[in-house]
């Protein structure tokens, strides 16, 4: 309980709670834009959290995660195009497609490591992007509009508010799950493997299988974020699959604090939020934004979560042990 009151945990949790009540506040202010805006933040928070499982915990730097975001989007738009709007079917398609693609690409990519791994994941994402762009009957580069949103029993994702709460619930559940995962045997194996793969394998653990599992898990969750994004925008477009989006996801994860529980949420919120704030001030916001990102990179490897941690360090070493991790 004591650890929950430390700023590193308290502030993000308060943020999550505040996010939960944004829709009624926005409705009261007659300014529903904020619902759509923060819904997007939540969706990217989910995608960043998903990436965090592979990248932060497993040390697998994937520059191709936007591929799964895209698969998730198209697993809503393609059935919708043919008139199928059952949310369960969309979800099933998304999970199966992401698992299969993630499994195959993961199997091949995990034969390499380091920069080669980064480039191979990028290659797969680019290939997916080119395939979608050249499919003229499904809109190609122009994308597909989605006329029938995913509908589950009692819940239809056809309004930003509906998507908002679905995303919030998913993000909260995912965050809690990552919290448990980090200190679970699976998570510990991954984290150890990130620091010293040979040692882990010499203990008799099949590290490659753990990493593949983490990669596939990460892919499926990212796909689910894509589903929500498609419903939010009522649109699916291959531009969400480009490598710059993959790069932005990595930036969000690292900005927030790699491998930490709340890092991805903080990263997504900060990245998208600062962008929006700066836009209101100056036309040349990109220059300021770029310098700010540079500043954060130079300031601390542990990102925002690490900065919060420094306010009141966890000396018991019971939970995150972020400071120890940063020594690597």
């Amino acid at each position, binding site marked *: 309980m004591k650890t929950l009151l430390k700023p590193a945990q308290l502030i993000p949790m308060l943020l999550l709670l505040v996010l939960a009540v944004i829709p009624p506040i926005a409705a009261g202010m007659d300014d529903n834009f904020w619902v759509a805006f923060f819904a997007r933040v939540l969706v990217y928070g989910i995608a960043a959290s998903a990436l965090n499982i592979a*990248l932060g915990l497993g040390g697998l*730097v994937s520059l191709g995660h936007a591929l799964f975001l895209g698969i998730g989007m198209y697993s809503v738009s393609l059935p919708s195009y043919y008139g199928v709007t059952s949310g369960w079917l969309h979800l099933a398609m998304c999970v199966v497609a992401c698992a299969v693609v993630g499994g195959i690409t993961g199997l*091949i990519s995990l*034969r*390499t*490591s380091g*920069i*080669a791994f980064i*480039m*191979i994941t*990028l*290659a*797969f994402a*680019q*290939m997916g992007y*080119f*395939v979608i*762009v*050249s499919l*003229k009957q499904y809109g190609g580069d122009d994308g597909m509009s989605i006329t029938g949103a995913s509908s589950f029993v009692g819940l239809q994702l056809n309004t930003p508010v509906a998507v908002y709460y679905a995303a919030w619930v998913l993000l909260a559940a995912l965050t809690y799950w990552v919290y448990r995962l980090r200190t679970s045997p699976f998570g510990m194996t991954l984290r150890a493997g990130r620091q010293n793969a040979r040692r882990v394998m010499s203990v008799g653990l099949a590290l490659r299988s753990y990493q593949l599992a983490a990669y596939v898990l990460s892919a499926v969750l990212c796909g689910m974020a894509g589903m929500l994004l498609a419903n939010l925008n009522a649109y699916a477009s291959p531009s969400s699959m480009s*490598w*710059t989006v993959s*790069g932005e996801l*990595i*930036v969000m994860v*690292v*900005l927030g604090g*790699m491998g930490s529980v709340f890092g991805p949420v903080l990263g997504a919120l900060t990245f998208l939020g600062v962008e929006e704030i700066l836009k209101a001030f100056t036309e*040349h916001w*990109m*220059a300021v*934004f*770029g*310098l*700010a*990102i*540079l*500043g*954060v*990179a*130079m300031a601390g*490897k542990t990102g925002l979560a690490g900065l919060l941690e420094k306010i009141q360090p966890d000396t018991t070493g019971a939970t995150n042990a972020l400071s120890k991790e940063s020594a*690597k």
Partner: protein
Amino acid sequence: MSATLLLAQVLNGLQYGVMLFLLAAGLTLVFGIMSFVNLAHGSLYMLGAYAAAVVGVQTGSFTLSVLAAVATGAAVGMALEWVAVSRLYRRDHLDHVLATFGLVLFFNEVVRMIWGSQPVFVSLPESLSGTVDIFGFTYPTYRFLIIAVGLLVAVGSQWLIHKTRVGMLIRAGSVNPQMVSALGVNIRLLNAMLFALGSALAALAGAMAGPILSVQSGMGEPVLITTLVVIVIGGIGSVHGALYAGIIVSLVDTLGRTFLPMLIREFASREVANAAGPALASMLIYLLMAVILALRPQGLFPAHKA
């Protein structure tokens, strides 16, 4: 499909490959020897192109514009190294990605603030604007200059790295910086110079590319990915690897783009060929890279580490 067309396309592949090499040379040096992931390499390429364009229009001299580009690249490189890069060497690769990602945004916006959104004009002297008749095709003379410059850089950098004292210090510094420093060498200055060299090479590539490509904000991004593919295939840190890989990638891309649709048309309808051909051709270099990495992750021509 005639033999002369095939030969002409091979020549095209060669010259574009050398162009890719010019870009890749600087990046592979910085990445391989200093282990620094520099996504801002494309921005330095852009700054070089702008410097050459500006000086070229003012003076009308191509040589001066290229020299100006190289000087700009070296200067900006040194400044960046001193301010930011030197503090990031010992960090994780991802911090490099984050930092240089920010730099890319910054430089793109600065360039747009100064020169606007429209592409800028690059002047090319009369002597270099001619054509040559090869295999029945007219071929721009300027492309031969690119090949010449590229080969010069390849030979020059090989000589620098393997036949000079500085090169030896660079190679030693990449393996064991503390030892080199303990032996009385100013490793900080060495690294700064190396980064400046890499940046100068990027700027040189920009200056050479200016006359044939559009010089505008963000021109570095489309080429950055291809450059990364080249250095990964060639082997990180290996300059001769970058040259061979550049040519291989370019040949595969060029021949694939031109002959793959033709090939598909033999088996399938024109409709299908027009749809599938370009898509497959775009994916070709990524497929190539994926296959090479899966079989030989260290690249085709890895640098020899002591």
